[in-house]
């Protein structure tokens, strides 16, 4: 049964070899001519305006938190979707109640304007 994961393992190994290999080989055989312009940090084409290591706004926190919550909601849907035909209408109602409760939260977030980037 674990044999069916062999393609995934192969893919991971190829990806690892490629990423490590391209860094190592470009360092080994690439020519290095350091200029000031080349070594300056790149920031969307414009000159850097300050350190990137500043405190981030708490607005990011709310987005991350909402992402986790709805991510977990989707995770619960996987076993439900696999068993959907065997659970029938009962399973459909169960998931309906589950989504409805979370929809209340979604409406709350929307109403409070937490999704807006003020």
């Amino acid at each position, binding site marked *: 049964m674990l044999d069916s994961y062999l393609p995934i393992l192969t893919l991971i190994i190829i990806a690892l070899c490629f990423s490590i290999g391209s860094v190592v080989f470009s360092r080994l055989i690439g020519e290095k001519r350091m200029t000031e312009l080349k070594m300056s940090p790149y920031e969307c084409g414009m000159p850097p305006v300050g350190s990137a*290591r500043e*405190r981030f706004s708490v607005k990011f926190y709310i987005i991350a938190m909402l992402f*986790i919550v709805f991510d977990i909601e989707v*995770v619960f849907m996987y076993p439900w979707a696999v068993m959907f035909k065997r659970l029938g209408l009962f399973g459909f109602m169960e998931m309906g109640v589950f989504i409805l409760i979370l929809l209340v939260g979604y409406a709350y977030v929307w109403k409070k304007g937490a999704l807006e980037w003020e």
Partner: protein
Amino acid sequence: MEIIFFYLVALIVVISGILVVRCQSPVNSALALVNTFFCLAIYYVMLRAPFMAAVQIMVYAGAIMVLILFVIMLLNLGTEAKKRYTQGIVWSSLASLLLLVNVVYFLKRGQVTDSVGDITAYTVQSFGHTELIGKALFTEFLLPFEIASILLLVAIVGAVVLAKKDV
């Protein structure tokens, strides 16, 4: 073959676990933690629990790590926490050694219930791991499942109340 792979992954887990506590920058620690989570997902696959592996990667290596990284950046630990807590290494190693002894003791005392009980390795293989979880979750553990949605609702409201200036 499988046992060699097990120990290889175990080595990576232990090394990344050490890196989590030993890295200078908290962001590097967080990335080492991603590595640990990913290796744990490999163990779930080896335990014939692919759904758990998928959840491990999606929720832990994905969502939880995003939150941890955001908290590191919110607190701006990137530059300030140069001096990490390194005292008390004796006490912490003593505590973890004690924990290890406990775990090994209870593992030795318990018995393998592979061929006894409703869910055996055979049922998992024939019925399917995700299907078994779905069946248990939506019939036997229906109430906890619905309560989980209320828990998530509380998390949403809590995040909004915490982070919003004018609720």
